[in-house]
């Protein structure tokens, strides 16, 4: 009885084994296909890996170029600021000269009146005889003084316009700080992308991208930036009725009106 059971068990095992072989036989073509697919994919993966390494190796150069742009704009801004400072200084000098000349004109007018008084007092009864000639002379002089005052006024107006323009140029140069922060933000992204590509290529079994570098990333250590920095005309973000209830909604830009209302309530 025991022998019959054992034989039956053995036959069952053999059946199971046969099933496994049959399954194996059926699976072999599939496995072959998978192997062939992997063989086909291998060059593709190598291509991908090559592309990743190529892209990653170009990133330091892109970063370096961006850094150069930032440095160049900083230098240009400094040069413009120097010129603006010089122009403002000259405008101020010119303004002072115009003011001094205006004061001189007023002084001459005052002197003329004093002189007239001296003549009247000195000549006494004889004054009416020379008064007409004096008034004619004084009239010509007054006309010249008025023309001079008018010219000074025009000059002062031009100086004021120039000063205002120079101040506006100076204020517009804040764009340099804003764009350099945006560039720093892009550089940070490049740095992060490069690190991730580096990890990816390492996982694909290739050498680290760093080993291919001949240019180091020139991202300054501790560089600080605002990725949302943007250049609007000053005061453009003004609103008439700030809605403080919505003030803390994340991701929204604050207006000058928002800020004024918020700090006024402090």
């Amino acid at each position: 009885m025991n022998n019959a059971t054992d034989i039956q068990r053995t036959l069952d095992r053999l059946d199971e084994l046969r099933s496994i072989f049959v399954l194996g036989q059926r699976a072999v073509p599939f496995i072959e296909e998978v192997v062939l697919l992997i063989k086909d994919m291998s060059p593709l993966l190598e291509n991908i890996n090559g592309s990743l390494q190529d892209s990653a190796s170009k990133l330091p150069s892109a970063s370096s170029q961006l850094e150069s742009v930032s440095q160049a704009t900083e230098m240009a801004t400094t040069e413009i600021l120097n010129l603006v400072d010089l122009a403002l200084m000259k405008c101020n000098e010119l303004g002072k000269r115009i003011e001094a000349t205006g004061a001189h004109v007023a002084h001459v007018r005052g002197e003329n009146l004093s002189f007239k008084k001296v003549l009247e007092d000195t000549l006494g009864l004889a004054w009416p005889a020379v008064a007409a000639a004096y008034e004619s002379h004084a009239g010509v002089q007054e006309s010249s003084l008025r023309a001079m005052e008018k010219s000074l006024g025009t000059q002062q107006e031009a100086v004021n316009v120039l000063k205002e323009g120079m101040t506006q140029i100076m204020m517009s140069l804040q764009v340099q700080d804003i764009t350099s922060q945006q560039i720093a933000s892009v550089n940070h992204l490049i740095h992060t992308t490069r690190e991730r590509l580096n990890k990816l290529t390492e996982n694909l079994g290739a050498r680290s991208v760093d080993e291919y570098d001949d240019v180091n990333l020139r991202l300054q250590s501790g560089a600080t930036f605002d990725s949302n920095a943007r250049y609007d005309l000053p005061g453009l973000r003004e609103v008439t009725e700030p809605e403080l209830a919505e003030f803390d909604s994340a991701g929204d830009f604050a207006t000058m009106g928002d800020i004024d209302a918020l700090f006024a309530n402090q």
Partner: protein
Amino acid sequence: MKFLVVDDSPTMRRIVCNALMEIGYTDLTEAEDGQKAMDKLTSEEVDFVITDWNMPVMNGLELTRSIRKHETLGNLPILMVTTRGLKEDVLSAMQAKVNNYVIKPFTPDILRDKIDMILKIGS
């Protein structure tokens, strides 16, 4: 009145200083980050601080907190002038106890209004 202008960008420090001179404030001193600003504040008599936010070593927010914690400098007026224009940024600055906030770009008039506002409230 002596102003301390804190910004890591030399261009911005110059622009802020020029704007201050334009509106009549000529006693100015500068620092390029929060730490250097604290050094100046503890060694020089300063009446008003204008600071950027994004700076290396110690940023404007940390500088504000350091000033507020300081036993003698705690009440110093602080105006933050920054590119950070998000509402949550303004709230963070307010929580750090800046006296007012300006988003770049600004004009001398905006700067004067903000300074006047702070001084008026302070007095």
